[in-house]
């Protein structure tokens, strides 16, 4: 039997103290020299995050970045907030303990494709399933950078790397599909170079109460350069990128060559030329749907080849969070039964000598 915890619907940042002081991106820069390779996509993401945080208006001391191990996991050192650079794959566990005990904090996990999907895969899926109020930034560069270029769980099958001289054999993960399958209540995807799109997704993630995972396609110019170039090269990108907007029909493409997402006879999602199908046939995106079937189908619309690639917010469907409920259980227990240590130690079966 479960107890009704009677929790109000909250936003992701409710309970986190705010400030009226004007903040600037530089307030979020620590004094540490940023040491990623020149041209690394991590720089762009760092700048975007430092630029977007002031808009949240939170007290800086109430932000915490927790990372695992990998290139992107150096991130907390560059943020003038609280931070922890932890161990490989385990950041979601540490963030879970922190977020559960400290509702006044905005807790962010910074991780990569190896950190989150390989060594830390178990923690990722369980954090998402539990729906702890933490935001997971998954930098996906489809390669191991820090260890100098081995294939990762998102690398193309057949990829030749130092550890796979005749090609890797593994089928890659689709991180968005994985997150949806793990019951994530918020799933987004953005490109490192798309400051506007990334900011939009990050803002929504911050405001979502519960576990949010944002996959960020991030270029590693040293070991996997150009992995996402097809999405950046302006000739082709408009034919490939499908941005999602909640409540809107899913359309994309250059002005003179519009496409839309429709359902075929079997109910499968497909891309069709807009002028060949009616406006009414276009699938409308519903990020808040409880049923994840459509979000999942959208995540499978393109494959590893990025043709096409759906970006934006796949899912933002709040449900009660683990940490809110855990705290409510503790609070209600204390209200029903005020702590009496002497009473506990004594119990009700004693004898006196």
């Amino acid at each position, binding site marked *: 039997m479960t107890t009704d915890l009677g929790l109000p619907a909250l936003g992701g940042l409710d309970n986190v103290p705010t400030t009226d002081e004007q903040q600037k991106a530089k307030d979020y820069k620590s004094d540490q020299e940023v040491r990623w390779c020149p041209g690394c996509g991590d720089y762009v993401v760092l700048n975007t995050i430092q630029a977007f945080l002031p808009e949240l208006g939170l007290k800086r001391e109430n932000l915490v970045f927790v990372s695992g191990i990998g290139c992107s996991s150096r991130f907390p050192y560059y943020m003038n907030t609280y931070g922890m650079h932890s161990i490989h794959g385990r950041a979601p*566990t540490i963030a879970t*303990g922190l977020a559960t005990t400290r509702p006044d904090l905005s807790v962010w996990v910074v991780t990569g494709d190896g950190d989150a999907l390989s060594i830390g895969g178990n*923690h990722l899926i369980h954090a998402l399933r539990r729906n702890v109020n933490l935001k997971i930034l998954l930098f996906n560069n489809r390669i191991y950078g820090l260890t100098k270029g081995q294939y990762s769980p998102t690398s193309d099958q057949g990829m030749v790397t130092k550890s796979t001289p005749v090609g890797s054999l593994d089928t890659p993960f689709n991180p968005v599909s994985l997150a949806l399958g793990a019951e994530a209540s918020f799933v987004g995807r953005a490109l490192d170079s798309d400051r506007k799109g990334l900011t939009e997704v990050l803002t929504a993630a911050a405001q979502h109460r519960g576990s949010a995972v944002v996959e960020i396609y991030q270029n590693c110019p040293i070991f996997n350069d150009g992995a996402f170039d097809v999405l950046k090269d302006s000739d082709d990108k408009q034919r490939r990128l499908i941005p999602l907007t909640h409540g809107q029909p899913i359309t994309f493409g250059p002005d003179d060559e519009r496409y839309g997402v429709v359902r075929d006879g079997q109910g499968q999602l497909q891309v069709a030329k807009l002028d060949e199908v009616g406006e009414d046939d276009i699938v409308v995106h519903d990020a808040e749907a409880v049923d994840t079937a459509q979000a999942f189908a959208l995540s499978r619309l393109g494959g590893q080849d990025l043709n096409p690639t759906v970006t934006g917010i796949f899912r933002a469907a709040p449900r009660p969070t683990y940490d809110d409920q855990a705290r409510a259980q503790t609070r209600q227990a204390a209200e029903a039964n005020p702590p009496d240590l002497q009473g506990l130690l004594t119990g009700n079966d004693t*004898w006196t000598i």
Partner: protein
Amino acid sequence: MTATNGHRPAEQAGAGTAGAAQDTRKVNRVVIRFAGDSGDGMQLTGDRFTSEAAAFGNDLATLPNYPAEIRAPAGTLPGVSSFQLHFADYDILTPGDRPDVLVAMNPAALKANIADLPRGGTLVINTDEFTKRNLKKVGYETSPLETYELEPYVVHEVAMAELTKGALAETGLSRKEAERAKNMFALGLLSWMYSRPTEGTEQFLREKFAKKPQLAEANVLAFRAGWNYGETTESFAVSYEVAPATLPQGTYRQITGNQALAYGLVAAGQRSELPVFLGSYPITPASDVLHEMAKHKNFGVTTFQAEDEIAGIGAALGASFGGSLGVTTTSGPGLALKSETIGLAVALELPLLICDIQRGGPSTGMPTKTEQADLLQALYGRNGESPVPVLAPRSPADCFEVALEAARIALTYRTPVVLLSDGATANGSEPWLIPEVDQLPDLRVSFATEPNAPDGSGEFWPYLRDPETLARDWAIPGTPGTEHRVGGLEKADGKGNISYDPDNHDTMVRLRQSKVDGVSVPDLAVDDPSGQARVLVLGWGSPYGPIGAACRRLRSNGHAIAQAHLRYLNPMPANLGEILHAYDRVVVPEMNLGQLAMLLRSRYLVDAQSYTKVAGLPFQAEELENVLTDIVQGVEA
């Protein structure tokens, strides 16, 4: 022949004396072992008898022993579950080596336990289970009830199942359901034999089955039927009485090791005024601590059942970073999985409690059996120089105090601390002199609340240390002005930025070691009543009971022997070296292959003599008595 005058390895010589009463004889101590199939409810039966003995004011100690398989095939040797209980009119130290009374509910229980019953011991047998089929299952060709096999014992054959069914005929329960209450029949019979109070058990049964009054009534009826059977049957001409013990004055309760540990953790939270966060993954024999803690959320305790051992400790460390008292509980295999995170906690210098309830190893080993072979894992089982304080409780009730001590060290020195309990301590129980809460140590801490940089820069340096304790400043998120980043990469002394500087690494490795070496630990006390001892027996953890009992026997046999017991395995008490060198011989009994002995030899250059056993069971006082007598006589000669 009675249970008191057979060969009995008494903790004190001549413990039993025949009383004057016609039907009731006074004895000083009794060891009873209830043994049956795991489905027979032996643990519950033993538990209830323990409560009766406690309520009566006896001192007591218990040793549950159950199979690892949840449902081993019924009636087989692997399915045998037993509960041994030692109660006395004086303070005792162990659950007893051998039973005076063995209750065998089926042939398997008889076969598995009979070797432990000394000649002249009392045997109470449920004959209804001695069918051809059941006998065959455990390899009895003919029933031992029909051979001379049981001749050395005082045997009581009781058709417990039939008698129980008869007593319950009117309850409307099916015969099968009725038979299930036969453990209460056995309890009733033994309660009569040892003149135990009965109200407690009847009340307990009514509460336990409050939702099924018919079952409650049936169990009470079976219990009474057992009692009456003893009273009216001629085969039980004698009953016994064990007077209340004269323990130090105060109010007592019965407590198991895991319960005492959980209470200690709750108390540590209350006394430090910090929320307690327990991150844990189910593992035998540690899960009961998680279960117990989950009942006490009203004390600001959060329990988190994680997806694995690593997540359990990770979440606890995250909670510590946020200003909670982070705790994780586990057993040996789980400690192995947690080692990387313990290393991180060493580098972060944050308080964290890791409770390892040791069990038989290596690998999965023997989950339900006891051992103390994780000492070196706790001390050294991590990469790099990764020192942590290590403490071990010596008995079930001692877990409470050790938990508070572990918390004191973790909070004062900002360090992970390992607490090494074991299966015997965890599941065993004993009377506990209930402490006064206001006498418990004050564990309050102060967080850093402002920039601390000695250069006046207005920065916060997370690795600035208290010159006395070498503890670093603990600033928690949410505090303005002390924002900082920590991590597993080497930190610059003071400032805390990442540093690969060779001299700095050398400094930091030595600082972390010095901090742990400098943890304040009370001097070790030696028990040597005669002051003449030339042999010291030094133990740690749960062998405290059998070592102490063995020493008593040696002394009552006219030998001098000194006993000391280590609660602090790291750092060790400052006077330990001096103590070790003051004796001609140092003996170290351990349930491993000599881990502490090896440490003592390397640290103190002392020729410590190891006595080891890794059978999954505690030492017996008798075996230690023999070993120590030989050594003492050798030295005396």
